[in-house]
């Protein structure tokens, strides 16, 4: 759904992952790194915070926006170096605003 919405709003979705590990692997495989990474937290195998940590180790300047229902990891995620943390539920308008600001 995010994919559709973001596409309509004019963003180019490079790829999507279903878990943290896949996200890290995908990130490694990109020759040109994406401008924004939209990250959930509660995922199998590897959670969002762990995945964000690894991605930021690869490239400190990567911009990660969390979109999660786990408010309790907000502080951890922000301390790690995420640029924003969207608590679910949020409107698409707000998400798009935040992405545009981050760019």
């Amino acid at each position, binding site marked *: *759904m*995010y994919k*559709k*919405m973001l596409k*309509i709003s004019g963003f180019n979705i490079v790829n999507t992952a*279903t*878990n943290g590990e896949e996200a890290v692997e995908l990130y490694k495989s990109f020759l040109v790194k994406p401008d924004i990474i939209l990250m*959930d937290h*509660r*995922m*199998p*195998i590897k959670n969002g915070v762990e995945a964000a940590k690894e991605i930021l180790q690869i490239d400190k300047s990567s911009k990660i926006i969390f979109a999660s*229902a*786990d*408010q*309790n990891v907000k502080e951890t995620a922000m301390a790690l170096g995420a640029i924003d943390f969207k*608590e*679910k*539920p*949020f*409107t*698409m*308008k707000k998400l798009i605003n935040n992405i545009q600001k981050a760019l």
Partner: protein
Amino acid sequence: MLEESLIDLTIATYSIITLIIFIIMYRRGGILFSWLLVMITMTVASIFFYFRHFDSIYRIIGNLFYFLAAIILGYSVVQEYYEMFIKTEKNRINPAGVAKNSIFLITFSFTLINVIQSTVCLFLIIVGVMLIRINLEKKSITHSFMLLAVITALLTLIFSILSNENIDGAWEMAYIIKVVFHSSLLATGLSAPIENRLNQSEKKLFEAYNRTEFYKDLFAHDISNILQNVQSSMDLFSIYLEKPDQSEELYNLISIVKNQVNRGATLVSNIRKLSEIEEIEILIEPTSVNDILKNAIEYLKKTYEDREVQIQIDSIDKKYFMKANELLLNVFENILVNSVKYNNNPKIDILIKASKVQINSIDYIKLEFIDNGIGIPDNIKEKVFQRAFIKNKTESGMGLGLSLVKKIIEKYNGQIWVEDRIKGDYSKGSNFIIIIPEAK
């Protein structure tokens, strides 16, 4: 100076009274059996000690019983020390071994009768050190009294040795310490059940707290996700409304919202069932596998009218009864729904197999639910039954279904696990296997 026989009689009477209290406490639970044995041998020793005034042979017998008490006392501490610091899961202690070792210890001490006093002293010192370590770890009142008992047992021994050497005041001291020894044994007996009960209620409280936290977290997380999906659908809906020819997209969005409402309802009912199962002892009765399975299949076909589902049942005898109850329906429904939900094939094939198996001389009915779904990778085969585990991003919270299933089956003293339909290739589908004790 008091008559020696009178003091001996007082101690014997005192030990009989403490023994009676000890037995009452033991029957209420919480006291180790070995401590009761210590108490009994101590009492017998005191009685014989009184009778030594009539015949000196009783003195030797009394002493023997004292040593025996000290050895049992020490042994129970050594055993606890072993359980706490040395034992690993693999070499679990077995009662037969303990009995054998106790007999060995007793015979060993009887053959060494000449050096017995010094051996017992040394033994008690080691035991005392062990107890101090246990105490540092556990910080329990009972163990402090135990330590006092060990120290006084040691002192009693030392002073009786000294009194045999005719040292002034030694026998008076031995008597006083003996009284303290009895009293500390009694205190151990009194505090053990109280402390035990306290620990249990603390544990229950902790579990209840954890459970509440888990439900709170799960509920907040899943409801937020559901609301998010509804919100996003509405956002998209308003965009599509303004564009021409988007009726298919609009229709899709409506069905997403409908789905999310169902998800919320399932979440609520699952949480309710889970907490009920955890709190109440459920009634188990002979339950027909055939009848419940029929109902579950009917439910599945109604839920997925739009999908082609073929269910094949292999060798289910109408006489198969499990020790279960009506919650078995939830088990079957959950597994069947998962087979359809996590399946990308145009035609969904489910094979249900039944058989009887015997494990550890218990008769079980084994059911296998074999599907051609997306399968479960090895690294999450166990995790799918864990409560907080979430299968994937868009359908988070679905882990609750299978954790409910596992909880129910555990209540029936059964087991559930998952294998690959085709061994070694998980992507060809799963085989959910259930064993539940048979009702005859």
